[in-house]
């Protein structure tokens, strides 16, 4: 931390030295606009510099290192040895990785659409029916609570709620004579259980974004369309949805990026089990790197994750922009 604090006076000094230099070398009356421009540029760069250094050191350089390591065998002890594409070839023969890929894909395909639709519907309802009511604000606040809990806290609680023997959920379902399920212990329901918790945790967040977006749509549109006899359903599909397109884009993009990174919930709730039923991509990366110390192999998986996210973003961009015209 020390270097950050001492950075400030240094910056101060540099800016002032610069002032002095410029004042000394350039006559005050003449090309002031040029020197001012240069001085401003230097100041701008200095302001951006601290964050730029962090970005370079802890984001941009590591990306290139990841790509490099992915073509090597590296176990931390010995220097990385180039191994060509072998990590990538191994990846697709590794049943653990393939299972993790499949699980993550299912997780994304279940959570992203459901959380997007639920948060949109809830937001639309709250905005159209309850925007002036205190109860509406209260409901929004309550639904946000799962967002602020850590995935670790949420996973800890839900693991206990999902407990097969007299857990809260099974007991509750018992009231309706629904037979008890071994939620986290069975390969059929474990992944779905994690998806449920994820949706539970995310809806409040996207609801806030959607709600703000809907409140930003002009009331006039709704009033004039109501005069023309539009039903609430028509208003929703013809006004709300098209107007919210940029926000939906954001919600889906964030949803996809976050969902591909799922780790905490499944680590806490099932540890990847039963068998390989809830192993996720990031868990596979974590295990390869920090349990087996196969850094090169783990980096190959990480680079694969990056490629998947990039490709999906590009495709999503295409889908969203095609309808734009």
């Amino acid at each position, binding site marked *: *931390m020390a270097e950050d604090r001492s950075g400030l006076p240094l*910056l*101060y000094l540099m800016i*002032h030295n610069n002032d002095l230099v410029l004042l000394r070398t350039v006559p005050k009356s003449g090309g002031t606009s040029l020197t001012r421009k240069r001085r401003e540029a*230097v*100041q*701008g760069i*200095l302001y951006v510099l*601290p*964050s730029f250094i*962090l*970005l370079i050191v*802890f984001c*941009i*350089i*590591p*990306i290139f*290192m*990841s790509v490099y*390591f992915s073509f090597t065998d590296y176990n931390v002890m010995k220097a990385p040895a180039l191994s060509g594409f072998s990590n990538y070839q191994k990846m697709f023969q590794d049943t653990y990785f393939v299972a993790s890929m499949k699980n993550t894909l299912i997780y994304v395909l279940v959570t992203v659409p459901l959380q997007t639709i639920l948060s949109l519907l*809830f937001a639309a*309802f709250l905005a159209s*029916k309850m925007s002036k009511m205190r109860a509406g604000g209260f*409901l*929004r*606040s*309550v639904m946000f*609570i799962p967002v*602020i*809990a*850590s*995935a*670790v*806290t949420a996973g*800890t*609680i839900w693991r206990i*709620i999902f*407990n097969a*023997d*007299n857990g*809260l959920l099974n*007991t509750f379902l018992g009231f309706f004579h629904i037979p008890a399920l071994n939620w986290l212990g069975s390969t059929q329901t474990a992944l779905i259980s994690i998806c449920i918790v994820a949706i*539970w945790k995310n*809806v*409040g967040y996207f609801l*806030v*974004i959607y709600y*703000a977006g809907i409140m930003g749509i002009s009331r006039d549109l709704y009033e004039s369309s109501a005069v023309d006899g539009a039903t609430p359903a028509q208003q929703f599909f013809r006004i709300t949805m098209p107007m919210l397109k940029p*926000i939906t884009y954001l919600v889906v993009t964030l949803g996809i*990026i976050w969902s591909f*990174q799922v780790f905490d919930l499944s680590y806490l709730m099932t540890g990847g089990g039963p068998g390989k039923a809830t192993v996720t991509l*990031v868990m596979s990366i974590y295990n390869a*790197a*920090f349990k087996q110390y196969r*850094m090169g192999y*783990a*980096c190959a998986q*990480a680079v694969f*994750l*990056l490629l998947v996210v990039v490709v999906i973003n590009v495709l999503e961009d295409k889908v969203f922009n095609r309808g734009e015209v």
Partner: protein
Amino acid sequence: MRTKKLDRWTPLSILGLLILCFFAVICVAPFLYMVIMSFTQSTTLIIHWRDVNFTDFSNFVYVFTKSGFVRALINSIVVVGCSCFFNCLIASMAAYGFEKKNFPGKEALFRVYLITLMIPGQVTMIPTFIIMNNLGLLNTYFALVVLIINAFGVFLIRQFMSGVPDELLEAAKVDGCPELRIFFRIVVPLIQPVLISLVVFTFVTSWNDFLWPLISTTNSDMYTLTVALSLLKTQYQTNYGLVLAGATVSFVFPFLMYVILQKQFVEGIALSGIKG
């Protein structure tokens, strides 16, 4: 007016309201369950009210004395405090540079910042671990704090910074106000609302961070609360009251923060959403 409002409540919308309320209950119930269970000694999973004793803090006492939660709590508080401070400082400086100063390549650089927001943290995690390991920085607060600082803060504050009037900054400059004083005395107070939003974001991100602390701390003295809680869960599998007491401790701080700064939470998210 009144009748008009009543008209809007069709049977369908009442059904909607019921679904909404049901979801709201599901949102709170697990937390209520957590708090109540942390006051019981019973090993059953169903709340039996005769076992619940709200004056019996023995689970909490045990969590704090026996499982290193005190140290983890202190670590989390230090890490969160430093993360919030440095993220705000560094991000607002950068945002000011991007928005109010001109330098060559500015917008291209800003685009790089935005692109890095799309990159999953796990891609950079392993090399970062190796860098930190080689520099002997694992098990330090520095390692835990520095990764929290990312381009998001710069992006968020820049949105807000455009509302700071250029004339004001010009006037201060003409009056001979030193550059850094313009920044700290004029700009920072003006962007205070967005700084609070960023504090809230950083607080939650840093407090809830799990994977990076799990990797970068090998010494139990440096565990953060999330790591300590995950270990508590493995150590005391079936002592549900105890595990949930740990969960309650880790939840109570962000929850209080949320109760106090609710508006900033919501506005911060809305701000990042609408303009993003």
